[in-house]
């Protein structure tokens, strides 16, 4: 009796999972189909080809956008860790003047729609002659990720018992040494979550890159998808291929760290 219900639940659960994965699978299938088969509804996997990918890379030159996206996302993650982790440590441990104000400001920035600040940001960038450069994207995205990174790391730091630091300081270690050598290694799981979240949100961005960058060669992959539109319509085949390429890092991260990510985001938020 028990087993029967378990089988029903298993079936229903996997049916729902399958339903939710269907659009992604369909995208993958479309990207592997030659042009003549693009609109067919059969699920057959005969006649699959990588031709669409070749067209996407050779004719539409997406490797440029791909490398821009990779460079951008990695830089943002590194900068976020370098600047955000120490800030999170200081905000969670030390009483600094203006601490609450800064924390409240960071929380506030998570609610603000980016559209609201993108125009002044664009004007700021053009004043310092940085528009159309990847650098402007790196700076903007690093700042936009601070609220999330600092919040996640603060939660992790608050979970580290103060006694450990005090013991180390009694042994004569400097503040910085205690921070870097003792405390940071202890929040490695939280750090990974913060890093991956920063990467994914930067990788996925559309609006910021759309506004801050005008020249195609500096554009990210996300915006690059729109270059498959022309006056002749949409080149669905190569675009699906480009879409799959864009999804690869995201899927890899989701597969390996997905649950940890959601747990980190959820438990942190509830604690607040």
């Amino acid at each position, binding site marked *: 009796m028990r087993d029967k219900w*378990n089988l029903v639940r*298993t079936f229903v*659960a*996997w049916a*729902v*999972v399958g339903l*939710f*994965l269907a*659009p*992604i699978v369909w*995208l993958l299938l479309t990207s592997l189909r030659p042009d003549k088969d693009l*609109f067919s*509804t059969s699920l057959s996997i005969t006649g699959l080809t990588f031709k669409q990918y070749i067209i996407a890379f050779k004719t539409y030159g997406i490797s440029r956008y791909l490398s821009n996206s990779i460079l951008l996302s990695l830089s943002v993650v590194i900068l976020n860790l*370098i600047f955000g982790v*120490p*800030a999170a440590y*200081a*905000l969670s441990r*030390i*009483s600094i003047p203006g601490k609450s104000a*800064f924390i409240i*400001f*960071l929380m506030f*920035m998570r*609610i*603000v*729609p*980016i*559209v*609201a*600040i993108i125009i002044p940001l664009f004007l*700021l960038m053009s004043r310092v002659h940085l528009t159309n450069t990847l650098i402007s994207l790196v*700076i903007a995205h*690093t*700042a*936009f990720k*601070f609220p999330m990174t600092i919040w996640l790391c603060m939660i992790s730091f608050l979970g580290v018992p103060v006694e450990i630091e005090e013991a180390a300081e009694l042994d004569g270690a400097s*503040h910085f040494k205690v*921070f870097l050598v003792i405390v940071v290694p202890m929040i490695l799981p939280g750090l990974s979550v913060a890093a991956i979240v920063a990467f*994914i949100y930067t*990788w*996925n961005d*559309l*609006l910021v890159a759309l506004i801050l960058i005008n020249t195609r060669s500096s554009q990210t992959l*996300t915006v690059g*998808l*729109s270059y498959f539109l022309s006056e002749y319509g949409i080149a669905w085949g190569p675009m*699906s291929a480009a*879409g799959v390429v864009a*999804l690869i890092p*995201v*899927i890899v*991260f*989701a597969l390996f760290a*997905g*649950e940890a990510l*959601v747990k980190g*985001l*959820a438990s942190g*938020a509830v604690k607040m």
Partner: protein
Amino acid sequence: MSRIDKEKKVFGVKLVMPALLISLCVLLFPMVYSIIMSFFDWRLTSPSRSFIGFGNYLRALSDFYFQSAIYRNLLFAFISIPFQLIVGFFVALLLSSGIKGEKWARILFIMPFFTTPAVVGFNARWIFSSRGILNQLSSGIGLSQVSWLADTNFAFIAILIVDIWQFTPLVCLILLAGLQGIPTELEDASAVDGASFFQRVFYINVPLLRPYFVLVIIMQMISAFRIFDVPYIMTGGGPADATMLASMQLYRTAFSSLNFGYASAQSCIILLFMLVISSILLIGELRRTKK
């Protein structure tokens, strides 16, 4: 203050300084600039910027397009969020009930939430197109074809479907995290006492998950008013503004009408609106837990 404390404070300030400076330049300055500019008549089309006080705000409050966008967004949220909650909760229950391959099911189920919205948008255009898979399937079983993205009602439904698709997994996994925090003794004890499955769910799980439900509702309300990429790519706000949501309306005011002051005022209104809603929900929840 002892010398050690002072020394520690200096250390702390040094740690925070880089992030603080970057935030001031890239986050605070544009935000303040935007708020100040909302009180001016600031357009890209003319170099003059005259102070007009609350002019932009008053105009927004009687602006048909702005109001419709907000009502539309509210409708969007009020349909999408319950769906996400119900389906998410249902799946969370399933995924914590000891089914086969549970771990893999959870890992795979989270996919839609992390997928690049731009890809989701274009893929949705592909799937909902007149020759796309949905129409081909429905004509295959005898239903008439639907011009999804060209029809005002169906386009709205289409963006709803995609939104529910993308966020239900997130809601599900958050609720799942909450469910896993419920001590099994509670569930076992109630089962021994003769409670049926449904009684257990409604009288134990749901109340204990309350903070998670509130969290999800607040998160998704805020998210609903920030959503841009997917509807923008799917429909661009059309047809005839049927899918013009709040942030897309802001975008249009700023980049089509090129009226930056007005757009800033509109975004301030939306911001205030979201702050009010979040506060109401939060305070309501805090009051309940105090009881």
